[in-house]
């Protein structure tokens, strides 16, 4: 188990380093001068030069890369060109929106999808199964931003129960929670659709296994077989998808939804930083996203190993 863990850790660090090179190079070749963007069309060459100097853009690229790596290794992140505040601070504020949002969406989708998936598998071919499949088809095909807009029209436009967007801050927990409900539901709809499908097919696959027949043959009841034998074995693929989807949620899914509900989250921070060429923020945030995705993958691998002992022992991982 230790060797497995060490192997995975080294691989994770190597991936991070490789990612930092790619991120830096991509931003180097990305057209667009942050100083020009900030000063606009009326800027004079001397003003541009002055600003580039202040932003440190006149330094050679390798030097800037080394300085950035050094900063990150020491746990510091740079200062945003635009907000003029340390990136760590900005990210912490944004995480306070995005992480609860992604978690809410995940919990909500699992809470809905697991029972639905199991129900569909148990009633395979029946009306329940058909219903679940229709729901899942809908969830996968309807884009999240559209669901979001419909929810806003109904719950804030018509009924006035929930805000149409924005985030009041956790100083007022009730209002903050209310602000996240509609975005979480829009995200969860899509997620639940995927989980329900995966759960259904995993349970169906497991139901066809010999040991299930054996368990039934020795006289165990339907329910007991489902709970004691089928579910535990069907969980592995569900957990994998869960990990992947969490990465998706936090890196990509929230971006669109944060725009629809104008939530000040990580997605918006990144998007805005890219359009404003706030390169320091872009670099740091992308690296953090990469880091979190790698961590989640690592966690999933470990969880996997806990559920199923085979990868630990062999060449797996």
């Amino acid at each position, binding site marked *: 188990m230790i060797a497995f863990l060490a192997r995975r850790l080294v691989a994770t660090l190597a991936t991070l380093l490789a990612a930092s090179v790619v991120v830096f190079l991509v931003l180097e070749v990305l057209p667009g001068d942050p100083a020009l963007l900030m000063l606009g069309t009326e800027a004079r060459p001397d003003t541009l030069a002055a600003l580039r100097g202040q932003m440190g853009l006149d330094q050679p690229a390798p030097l800037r890369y080394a300085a950035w790596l050094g900063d990150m290794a020491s746990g510091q992140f740079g200062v945003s*060109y635009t907000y003029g505040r340390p990136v760590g601070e900005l990210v912490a504020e944004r995480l306070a929106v995005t992480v609860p949002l992604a978690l809410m969406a995940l919990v909500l989708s699992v809470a809905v999808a697991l029972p639905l998936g199991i129900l569909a598998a148990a009633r395979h071919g029946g009306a329940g199964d058909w219903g679940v499949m229709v729901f899942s088809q809908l969830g996968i095909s309807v884009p999240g931003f559209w669901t979001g807009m419909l929810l806003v029209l109904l719950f804030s436009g018509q009924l006035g129960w929930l805000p149409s967007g*924005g985030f009041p801050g956790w100083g007022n927990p009730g209002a903050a929670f209310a602000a996240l409900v509609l975005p979480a539901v829009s995200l969860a709809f899509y997620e639940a659709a995927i989980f329900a499908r995966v759960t259904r097919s995993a349970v169906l696959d497991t139901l066809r296994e010999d040991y299930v027949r054996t368990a039934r043959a020795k006289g165990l009841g339907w329910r007991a077989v489902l709970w004691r034998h089928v579910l535990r074995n069907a969980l592995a693929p569900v957990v994998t998808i869960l990990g992947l989807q969490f990465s998706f949620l936090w890196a990509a899914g929230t971006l669109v939804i944060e725009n629809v509900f*104008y939530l000040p989250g990580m997605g918006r921070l990144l998007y805005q930083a890219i359009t404003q060429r706030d390169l320091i923020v872009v670099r740091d945030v992308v690296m953090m996203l990469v880091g979190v995705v790698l961590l989640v993958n690592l966690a999933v691998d470990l969880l996997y190993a806990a559920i199923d002992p085979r990868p630990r022992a062999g060449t797996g991982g």
Partner: protein
Amino acid sequence: MRKISLLVAGAAVAALSLAGPAQAQRRDLVIGMALEPPHLDPTAGAAAAIDEITYQNVFEGLTRIDGEGQIVPGLAERWDVSEDGRTYTFHLRKGVKFHDGTGFDSADVKFAFDRARGADSVNAQKGYFTPIESIETPDPATVVIRLSKVDGQFLSNMGSGDAVIVAPESAGGNRQAPVGTGPFRFSRWTPGDRIELVRNPEFRDASTPKLDKVTFRFIADPAAQMNALRGGDIDAFPLFGAYESVPLFQADSQFAVDEGSTEGETILSFNHRRKPLDDLRVRRAISHALDRREIIEGAQFGYGVPIGSFFPPHREGYVDLTGVYPHDVAKAKALLAEAGHASGLRLTLKLPPPPYARRGGEIVAAQLAKVGIQVEIIPMEWAQWLEQVFRGNDFDLTIVSHVEPLDIGIFDRDPYYLGYRNPQFAAVMAELNGTVDPAGRKALYERAQRILTEDAAAGFLFQLPKIGIRKAGVAGLWKNAPVPANDVTAAFWTR
């Protein structure tokens, strides 16, 4: 039955909250903006969003541009101009304080302008300050500015956001926590979400402002802008982006719609350095190929006044030249054939992100295709556009709105992305820069417009509108946008 009683209870609660305890007038206002400013120092950045929060609210200049585009007194209560038009003596208001309690006097003016024209200045409009030869402060309430040459736009430039007065004690921190002399103080910035200003209790005029608090919230997505207004989260959206939903608000008595204008001349720019756009016949052919009415309908849902030259229709001195190149496909084809392009042309059209450019570009491309010009559309981000088109001059055609006030002089700039050269036009501009007398300036503006149209210096499309949506009870906001601003000094609730 339970459902019904719930409904009844809900209605009762709603009725109660409507009747309310003797409805006091609201003293706060929530304003929606599409873009968040990168920082809050208008003397160190070009982003309109900076001025849309700070101009007149937080910061003031010597002069001020009001909602009608007129130059009125600001921190200078009056000024004298010398015979030769080169010396301005500004008489400053007394007893004015910055928000941090430090006093305002002539030394602050000198500091602010020296900072803007200094070697390490990052002022986006440093050019406004280059004519300044010397700044003298004979006493705390007087500033004497000597120019090296007559500058007809000097007073108007001094009223821009780039020329607001900042104090040496606080200038360094203005990007994050702006300290000015205006009726509102900066209170809080929640990045990505909102910026809050509160009333400055020490403002010189006790009856101003009428509000205690103003919140600016950032909502980029047009559909979300609409939802925020309808959901009651926003009281006013002065530069509303979802034109398609304007009729909805017009039909709703809870809202009022203001159709005003900006200073943005939206044009199809030609790269005059490149063949075949250096050929007047080709430029005229393109001008005949354009159908402004269709562009305004299609790209702008009908909002925007057509222009035939580079001058805002609401400004004095405007000449309507929209009839010079009527939409005429046959004429356009004939001109192209005459120029030797009977078999057609291929051009690129690089488009920045605003919807007027992206949607407008599609329609322009279709119109040009009808006269035999195949257009390749290349959409790009602002950063890319600035670098490739604006600085690199690597383009054939582009669509952009030039939003600086009275900026017809850009056609005379060299180097400039347009690459337009015309000695006759340059002579008019030189005369204009040396003319202070309003009647003389008006005549020169008229001549300049005619030259640009005659020369088909660009495809002149429309004046960018300012569509503002507000709750019916909100009053005192600007209808037009002569400068980028959301001046809420005079804003109040009527009910």
